[in-house]
Structures are given as structure tokens and as C-alpha cells.
């Protein structure tokens, strides 16, 4: 959200480095980080976990009509990525058009500009993925 500095800043460990959580009780992985295990609730033992950044395309689309802040990036491939630990996240897939990528393809996390505000505003960075060859 534009103009909200802390909103992005507090998510830097997750957005820059894929730091999520792991429930030691049921072996579930959470990205983004959750403090309450969805399966074990209060019995869950949640510890920090840094994801490897490797995963697969679970579903994908190509966005042609962008929301405010991403107009300059269209068209871009957006996917639900299944990380190798099991958690899923939504992210852009870089340097690729839809004809070159499909469900099941391997991907790896990259660090890119996610949104740029107007020339006087902040630049937000974070994870995207690239297709593995």
C-alpha cells in the first residue's frame, strides 16, 4: 500500500529472504510466517524457518490488466508456487511469457523490485521466481 513505510519494512525478512515458520508438532511449513499452526492450534510448536527458495508452479496466469503501482510491468506471469517444503505462495515469475511456462515447472526465488511508487516515493523489493532450466 502506497505511502505506508512500516507495512513493508516489517515484512522484510519474509519478502527478502523467504523467512517463514515451521510447526515441529505436525511438521507443517508456513510461508508467510504464522504464529498459530492451522492444524495444531495451541499444541503447535512454531519455530522460524528459512525456505530454500526452490519450488514448482502449482497454477499460473498472465496479468494484462495491472493494479495501481504495477502498470509498467504488464504483461507479467503470476503464479501460485508450491515451495519444496510444501507451503504455497503467490508470486510473479520473471523473464518469461506464458507460452514458455506451465504447471509443474521448477522455479527458484529471485530478488526483484516489486513496486515503485512515483519518482519521489519508496521502492519495494521482494521475492519473485524464475523458471529453472
Amino acid at each position: 500500500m502506497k505511502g505506508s513505510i512500516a507495512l513493508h519494512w516489517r515484512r522484510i525478512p519474509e519478502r527478502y529472504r523467504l523467512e517463514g515458520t515451521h510447526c515441529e508438532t505436525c511438521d507443517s511449513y508456513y510461508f508467510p510466517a504464522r504464529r498459530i499452526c492451522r492444524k495444531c492450534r495451541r499444541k503447535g510448536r512454531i519455530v522460524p524457518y528459512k525456505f530454500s527458495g526452490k519450488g514448482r508452479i502449482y497454477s499460473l496466469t498472465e496479468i494484462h490488466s495491472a493494479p495501481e503501482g504495477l502498470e509498467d510491468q504488464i504483461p507479467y506471469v503470476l503464479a501460485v508456487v508450491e515451495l519444496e517444503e510444501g507451503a504455497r505462495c503467490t508470486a510473479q515469475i520473471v523473464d518469461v511469457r506464458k507460452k514458455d511456462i506451465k504447471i509443474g515447472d521448477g522455479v527458484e526465488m529471485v530478488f526483484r523490485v516489486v513496486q515503485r511508487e512515483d519518482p519521489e516515493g519508496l521502492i519495494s523489493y521482494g521475492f519473485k521466481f524464475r523458471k529453472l532450466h
Partner: protein
Amino acid sequence: MAGIIGYGAYVPKYRIKTEEIAEVWGEDAERIKSGLGINEKSVPAIDEDSATMAVVAAKIALKRAEIDPKKIGALYVGSESHPYAVKPTATIVAEAIDAVPDLTAADLEFACKAGTAGIQICMGLVGSSMVEYGMAIGSDTAQGRPADALEYSAAAGAGAYLIGKDEESLAIIEDTCSFTTDTPDFWRRPKADFPSHGGRFTGEPAYFRHVRSAADALLKKLNRTIEDYDYFVFHQPNAKFPKTLAKRMGIPQEKITDGLVVPYIGNAYSAAVPLGLANVLDKAKEGERIFISSFGSGAGSDAFSLKVTENIRKRENAENLSYFIDNKEYVSYAVYAKYRRKLKGL
């Protein structure tokens, strides 16, 4: 002293051919290609900048060095295209590679030699035991004014060098020396979108004088000759300048070939020598010597003498520069203009 314990090089996927740019301005592409020796140049994606490219290169360097990023005590990013005028690129990179928070970090700017300046700073910090490891990165998304000669060369890329103690090094830095004067051959004032330059003034009084003087001084200091080195890496604003310099210094052309990546990717500014050196390290064998002389307009040159060690095998831990050079996709001038945010309204 100190040495390179890991290195990483990155070039974005997109390329634009010299022909494509020449077509837009009605220029003779063949004349430009033979004049500059640049066939195509790299173009960053719209969501890449000097910070994101620096992160890719830094992560590759870490993979090779196999060290905990938290042990990095100093991190410098040299660039003439920092994403912010005020707010460091180095902190973004340090966060992304998880070197935070116990380190010192800063941005450097010295036209095309800010990357090698960072290496020298890290050498001092490691050599004096102020830090265990230092990371020096040269990263640029250089902009050339449309239709200017620089538009054919201004490119993007990043090279990262992790500096540590001799014994861990894959290449020991035997010595370094610099040559610096106030020579205004190229500049960009605040708020200006594109740099200005002195045309032919960038040649003799700037590039040739500085690169040659630093090189000669280091050879003299080490009491070495051209024959003592297997590879030479010079700053490469185009292919013609380093080739001419090699000829003048009596260096066989084959000794500069591996360090000359400008024909394939253009001039990556602060990353130019770091990328040329990476391409040499990708091939060099234990015991071989590498000689470097960078150049930054304004003006100065940093010369280095390197000796490759057995740890060079660690380069197999990560992608070589050729992986990124070969993995390419050509774009039209229109797409290039979009990616470089030259379109009004973006």
C-alpha cells in the same frame, strides 16, 4: 594480505543488438560495430536495478565461498545508478543476503571503477583484521542518452567479490595501486537523467593515461613484466580502448580475450572490470597470474595483481558468467525503451 574467497557475476537476460539501435537513428550498424567492437548489450528487466542485480551476484559469491553471510563485516556497493540518490543500496543487499545487522555498509560512486574501489577498501579492512570478510560489489544499470554514442554501450550487470584472508582465497591479491587525478571526462549532475561526456577527451587524457599509469606503477612496484601474467583485464567502455592499450603495452591480444566481455554485453560500468575478471576466474588455473586495471571517469584507475590458488575449484559451486551471457533474449528498441523506463508516464 587479502584475497578473493568467492566471486559472483550476473548479467540480465535481455539484449539489444547494435543493429536495432542503429536502425532507430539511421546509423550504419557495421561502422558502429567495428568502431566500438560491441555487437549487443545487456538490458535489465523492468523490475531489475542495481540493488537486485547486486543481490544475485552476491549470492553466487557466497555459494562459492561457502561462508555464513553473518560473518561479512563490511559491504560496499559501487554504482553510478544507485536506485536512490539518498538511501543506501548496500543496506538492501545486506538484508537480502542476510548479512545484517552486525556489519558496516556504504555505497560508493566513482563512475566505472566504484566496484574495484570497494575491493581495495575491503582489502584494507581484512588486512588490518578489522573485519573477517568484506563484500565489494560493482553493479550498474547504465543509461545512455538516446542517439548518443553511449546508447550502444551503456549496459547492465553486477559483479560481487568476497574478500578474506590469503589462506582461504581462490585468488590472492598480491598488491594494488591506484592513479587518480581530477579529469572531467564524463559526469552526471544531480537530477540529470543522462550523463554527459567529453567525446574524444575521454580517450588519451582520461582512459589511456589513467589505466596505463596505474598498470605501469603496479608492474614497477612488483618488479614484474607482461610475461609474468597470463591474463589482463582492463576497463572496457568499448572493445577498442582495451585492445589499443594492450597493443601499446606489448600485451598479446590472447591475454586480454577472456577478460573482454564488452562485445557480448556492452559496458556494465561499475561491473565492467568485475565481470571481466569473473570471466577470467571462470577459466583460470591454479598458479596463473591475472593483472587488472580499472578506470573510473573523473578520473582514476585501480590496478591489481592476482594469483590463482587451488581453491579455484570452488567456482564449481555456482553458475559461471557464461551461463548468464548465453541465456539471452533479444528485445526491440520499443521494449528496450519500456524496460529502461525511457517512456514518458512510466
